[in-house]
């Protein structure tokens, strides 16, 4: 065979290989989430679509959703087990009929509803999302805040997957984890109620502290952040009230201000739906700030200010980028100059009106942490380098509105 003929045969062979059919694939495959989980995962909740979306901020990919029923979708993540917990309210006919409140246990890999615990149908609903439910530090019990308007906590044993007890908290609301078997609630007089539960999740001890702030003069918001054994509460007037809960009784540390005198005169203050976040490995506090007068405590922010918690010194101010535009989950994006212009419009319009602002922030807990921002006016999630403040881009997760935000491994770094 001549050299020419050989080359011809080779070409035919290559062409045949190039035309090989796509292999037949199997039907019915469903993805599972990876273990270990990613360090930059975040849950973003949409009360309009009634679900929360899990997004990986490392690449902007949507990983999956959990349904949440009526209300603000909030997801709890234990460190001990690969699971997620969602408290849901449903009616038998959608928006009417028989009410059922449940805590649903989702598989951490399957993201499928594996079990549910029926709750008394009295959980509180509010536009506020902070402190509405809490997971004890030993990952055993979840406390759900009830309001009828009598106040109480429903305690769920998430290890045994059963309802434990209802504990009355007269005059006190919400729940924050404070120890292996302890929750704290905020009271109308500016005090704390400490609720300890026994091995069965029943009330073991209930104590009230002295008031540590004046709810008439300058109330603290519900949107506190955990820093090891402390909870940091921010007041309407931007004072941080650290509460050390390492001992049997809370220790109220001296308050400190997020703003200096000039900034106070200039009307800088904290605001938004979730306005504090802590990066525990570096001891940094992130606060969502805006300019506005009294009664703007729920107005979203245009900047994030970063503090060193040990020295209480401010390290940096980050001017936030716009949230990005979307319509019912569809991103409004374009290539080239138009895309650039849309991006810039998002930046320019941030803070232009009280409702066009960043409503919630969160920070991941890894060594290269991300600062995450969302707002109700957009279905996009923006992320920044939490150490330098550099803007890293936006992920469009398909939501109509992003109202709740949490980084699932805020204190644990992933499932053990």
């Amino acid at each position, binding site marked *: 065979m001549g050299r020419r003929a050989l080359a011809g045969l080779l070409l035919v062979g290559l062409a045949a290989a190039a035309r090989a059919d796509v292999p037949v694939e199997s039907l019915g495959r469903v993805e599972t989430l990876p273990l270990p989980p990613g360090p930059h995962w975040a849950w973003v909740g949409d009360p309009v679509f009634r679900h929360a979306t899990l997004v990986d901020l490392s690449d902007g990919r949507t990983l999956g959703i959990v349904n949440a029923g009526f209300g603000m979708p909030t997801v709890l993540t234990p460190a001990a087990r690969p699971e997620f917990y969602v408290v849901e309210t449903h009616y038998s006919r959608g928006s009417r009929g028989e009410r059922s409140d449940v805590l649903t246990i989702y598989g951490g890999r399957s993201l499928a509803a594996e079990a549910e615990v029926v709750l008394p149908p009295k959980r509180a609903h509010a536009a506020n999302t902070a402190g509405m439910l809490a997971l004890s530090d030993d990952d055993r019990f979840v406390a759900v805040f009830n309001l009828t308007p009598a106040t109480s906590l429903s305690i769920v044993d998430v290890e045994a997957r059963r309802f434990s007890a209802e504990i009355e908290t007269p005059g006190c609301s919400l729940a924050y984890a404070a120890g292996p078997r302890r929750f704290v609630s905020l009271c109308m007089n500016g005090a704390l109620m400490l609720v300890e539960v026994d091995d069965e999740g029943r009330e073991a001890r209930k104590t009230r502290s002295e008031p540590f702030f004046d709810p008439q003069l300058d*109330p603290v918001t519900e949107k506190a952040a955990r820093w090891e054994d402390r909870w940091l509460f921010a007041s309407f007037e931007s004072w941080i009230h650290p509460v050390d809960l390492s001992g049997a009784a809370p220790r109220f540390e001296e308050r400190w201000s997020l703003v200096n005198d000039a900034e106070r005169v200039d009307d800088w203050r904290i605001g938004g739906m979730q306005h504090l976040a802590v990066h525990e490995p570096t001891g940094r506090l992130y606060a969502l700030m805006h300019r506005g007068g009294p009664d703007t405590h729920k107005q979203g922010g245009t900047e994030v200010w970063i503090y060193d918690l040990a020295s209480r010194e401010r390290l940096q101010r980050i001017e936030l980028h716009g949230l990005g535009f979307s319509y019912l989950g569809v991103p409004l994006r374009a290539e080239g100059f138009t895309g650039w212009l849309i991006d810039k419009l998002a930046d320019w319009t941030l803070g*232009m009106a009280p409702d066009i602002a960043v409503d919630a922030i969160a920070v991941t807990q890894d060594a290269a942490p991300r600062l995450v921002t969302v707002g109700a006016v957009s279905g996009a999630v923006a992320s920044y380098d939490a150490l330098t403040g550099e803007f890293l881009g936006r992920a469009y997760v398909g939501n109509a509105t992003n109202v709740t935000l949490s980084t699932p491994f805020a204190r644990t770094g992933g499932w053990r």
Partner: protein
Amino acid sequence: MARMDRWMTGFARSLARRTSRRSVLAGIGTALVGGAAVPLLPVARGRAEPAPGDRVTPSGEPDPTTPAGDPQDCGYWRYCAVDGFLSSCCGGSHNACPPGTQMSPITWLGTCRNPADGKEYVISYNDCCGKDVCGSCICRRHEGDKPVYYTPKSNDIDWCMGTREIIYNSTVAVVVGVAREKG
């Protein structure tokens, strides 16, 4: 371009400070629950009388000849502490819920100044319940609002308690009396 960015941002923010929020298209979903502030009682009843002592009745509009204002406008005087969707944009009116909804019997009261006569009025903000969120005329004014643990003054709370369903649709603002002093 960076300079233009700064200029535009500065312009936008200064405009924002001068722009009333009612002129702004707000995000749906922010305020799934309705509300308003400055109450008289830990749990005020919508049709109940105001607290004894510093308040007097009678209820109703201040004066039939007074211009009523625009009840579909968030700036309308009696909405001073609302956080929610205005019933008047949702098939109801400023003091009646949309058809087919139920008015929450449990609510809280606010105190708003009527610029037409300069008087402070006690306003009962009742949520309209049992149908999904209206979505029209979001109105977020938080005068006197307090956090959830200060329950009777928190406009974040879904007050659809005591109705068949806790599903929130919109909010009304009913005059229930004249306040002698700002509550």
